[in-house]
């Protein structure tokens, strides 16, 4: 199930992903990551982070697909709604 090395690795990945999210906010426009591209990158990063929290911290890796499906389904549904709302805003 859980082991310390995997938990530490996930923490490092989550820290790097958080730095990426912050960097998009700080220098995204200067390095060409702005608008819909930034929106897509931010959602992709949060899906990666959320999935790792669910699978490793919450311990859902290897658990019945029903539970992982509900949790990751929530993440994907919320992300999709945010993307749709963002797309409507650009119209």
């Amino acid at each position, binding site marked *: *199930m*859980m*082991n*310390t090395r995997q*938990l*530490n690795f*996930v*923490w490092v990945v*989550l*820290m790097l992903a*958080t730095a990426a*999210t*912050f960097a*998009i*906010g*700080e220098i995204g426009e200067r390095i060409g990551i702005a608008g819909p591209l*930034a*929106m897509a990158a*931010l*959602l992709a*990063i*949060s899906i990666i*982070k*959320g999935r790792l*929290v*669910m699978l*490793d*911290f*919450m*311990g*859902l*890796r*290897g*658990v*019945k*697909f*029903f*539970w992982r499906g*509900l*949790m990751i389904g*929530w*993440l994907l*549904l*919320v*992300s999709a*709604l*945010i993307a*749709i*709302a*963002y797309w*409507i*805003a650009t119209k």
Partner: protein
Amino acid sequence: MEHHPDIPAPHAGPAVAPPGDLAIWFFILAELLAFGVFFAAYAFARARNVELFNEMQQTLDRPAGALNTVLLITASWCVARGVEATSRARAATGARWLAGGILCGGGFLVVKGVEYAAKFGAGINLSTNTFYMFYLSLTFFHFMHVILGMIILIVLWWQTRQGVYGPADMNGIESGAAYWHMVDLVWIVLFPLVYVMR
């Protein structure tokens, strides 16, 4: 063990129930549903007030938001390490990890408190505009969940120190930890959505 041929098991071994009490998972799903509705409401309100939301977002303290992301994720990591240590009959170590999680969670509350103080000091309140109505209510709804999570972690820390949990009984600590990770999970969506996306 009961086998459900219609439920695929992507990993080797039998399909198992999630850690902790099943009831906590229904509670977590209900909480996630509430936050999901809130996030969608924010996103669609933004779609109707893009200029206001983009302008007001610039007045938020993004470094504080990022620091709070680091604190919550680190708290979650500490709690996961605490559960892992306790499950291997090292409850004293587990309790120390839980204490680390409590410290990081406390750090989150302090940083968010400083942020709120700055906003209230600038005369901002729920009726300032639509953006701040959402910012304050959404982050405060989450803030209340962090407080409840902290209370749960303090109880778990105390019980773990007392030797309540171990390899034979992980139900309570796993349930409380799952709730804490949910609080972290919600912030992982909230931070980019409210502080960064424009």
